[in-house]
């Protein structure tokens, strides 16, 4: 009885993804053709785009858009957090106030709000502070108190706060109430429990829609043209209303919006990674990980 020869170690053979390679080649070819047709199509008038892309008025418009977006997002989300906490509180008055605010500012169109804040002097020509018994302490013409820029900021922040409130509320609702009970059992105060236990978990649910909202807000700011504020889109429109170079100037605005959206998306990715620590699926998220995931895998196929 000869002993059976020991089995040779099994050779690992990589799985071949022929279909993947084929579909990738086809997709890349289509993309290349599209880019090529855009670049070579004279109707896009790329030389007009190039001439205007970094012109002073367009850059001033970019600055205006960034300022409006930044201010409205920061203050809007701060207001949204307060509104969400009010809505989730046990105090029925706070709940009602928060609900009404959100209802009102989601109901009134952005354009109407902007017009109302900008033209508020048509409704209230003067703003003043008077205390019964002491008379008027201070009063000034409304238009000198609320500048066009302030009017835009007020309208954008009010609008943003209502939407942010719902996003934050969804995030908090998504965390199991048992988490807070457990925090109490460990001796944390309700506030500590909220800050250290609930919020970090809620953030993972809040971030994707919040990123969406911020990028949406970037383009919502374009309504300020009706109050003669020159944001990015309006700066482009002012040029083409004079020269009729409509499509190339809209391309200029689009390129800038794309650049800003890209930066915001990268920021969102990094913040999500920060809050994703400890969540198994996201723990390995890094640039290398992203690249690895994007490129064909080497080694054993999982």
């Amino acid at each position: 009885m000869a002993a059976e020869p020991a089995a040779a170690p099994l050779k690992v053979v990589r799985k071949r993804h022929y279909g993947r390679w084929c579909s990738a080649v086809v997709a890349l070819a289509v993309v290349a053709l599209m880019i090529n047709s855009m670049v070579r199509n004279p109707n896009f008038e790329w030389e007009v785009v190039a001439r205007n892309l970094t012109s002073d008025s367009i850059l001033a418009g970019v600055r205006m858009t960034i300022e409006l977006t930044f201010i409205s997002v920061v203050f809007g989300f701060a207001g949204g957090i307060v509104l969400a906490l009010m809505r989730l509180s046990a105090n029925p008055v706070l709940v009602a106030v928060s609900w009404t605010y959100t209802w009102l500012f989601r109901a009134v169109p952005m354009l109407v709000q902007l017009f109302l804040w900008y033209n508020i002097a048509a409704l209230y020509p003067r703003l003043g502070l008077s205390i019964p018994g002491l008379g008027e302490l201070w009063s000034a013409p409304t238009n000198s108190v609320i500048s066009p820029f302030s009017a835009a900021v007020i309208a954008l922040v009010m609008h943003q706060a209502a939407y942010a409130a719902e996003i934050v509320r969804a995030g908090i609702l998504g965390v199991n109430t048992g988490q807070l009970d457990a925090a109490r059992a460990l001796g944390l105060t309700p506030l500590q429990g909220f800050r250290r236990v609930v919020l970090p978990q809620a953030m993972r649910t809040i971030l994707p829609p919040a990123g969406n909202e911020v990028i949406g807000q970037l383009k919502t700011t374009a309504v300020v043209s009706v109050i003669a504020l020159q944001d990015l889109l309006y700066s482009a429109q002012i040029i083409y209303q004079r020269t009729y170079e409509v499509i190339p100037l809209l391309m200029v605005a689009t390129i800038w919006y794309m650049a800003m959206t890209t930066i915001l998306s990268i920021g969102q990715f990094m913040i999500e990674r920060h809050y994703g620590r400890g969540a198994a699926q996201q723990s390995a998220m890094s640039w290398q990980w992203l690249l690895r995931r994007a490129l064909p895998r080497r080694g054993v196929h999982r």
Partner: protein
Amino acid sequence: MTILRRFALTMTLALSVCATAQAQQSNVPIKTDFEVSADPALEAILPDSIRQAGFINIGTNPNTPPTVFYGEDNRSLEGREIDVMTAIAHRLGLKPRWNDAGGFDNIIPGLSTGRYDAALANLDVNSVRLQRVDFVGYFNNNRLGMVVRSDAGDELLTELGQLCGRTVGGGSGTQNVAVLEQQSERCVAEGKEKIDIPLFPDRPSGVQSVVSGRTPAFFGPYEGLKYQASASRGALVLGGEFEVPPSFVGIGLGKDSELTEPVRQALQSLIDDGTYRRILDRWEIGYGAVSEAKSNQEILDGR
């Protein structure tokens, strides 16, 4: 299967909504009081495709009464641009089909893509624009105006030089703003303060900012602002009336369009038979009548 059927139903519904929405913007009804006969000689010079179709597509942006606007019923377009272009179409033996472009932004691309054969939207003729579109000049915008709040208590201004150091709003991209900017440069050259010019995307938003005291004055075509002042229920008055060098408003057509010449000749024939004059008198703007129908560079050369 039921899900599929429900999906199909929803899609059909959505598509029919699209179709009705589409129909509302194109072939908008109009109101005009001028009957014009067709001239076979002019029909003969039309491009074949248009003559066979029997209609002409016209784009407009109806937010500047009394030049072009929706009338009392909020459905029908009226104004001098409607009267002039409808008369031209009838003289050419064509039915005009008016389209609300939904804003100035769609007018020029609409001409380039052929969605509109012609466009009337208070289009000022200038040499930069002539590189992209054809024009037939039909009105001389040589009188500009300015609205102010009725409680501002200013006297009526008649000289552009009186605007130095003031804040005066204007409509973005218009010839009126170019006039203001040139005057502002003159102010600075004479050692006075410049003119501050907030730009508004359209006339309603600019006029509203005067009503609320945000902007002291808004500058633009005389007849339009006179109308705004009279429609403001006492809130606004005409605070300025300025005679400025000739500056022409045109009918826009696609670049090198075969329609440019027939439209120019039809306008000439309306000038000759007095219809053109009657239209301008109907809107009390006889001061801006052109004596001769011209197209493209000729409009600018004839100043």
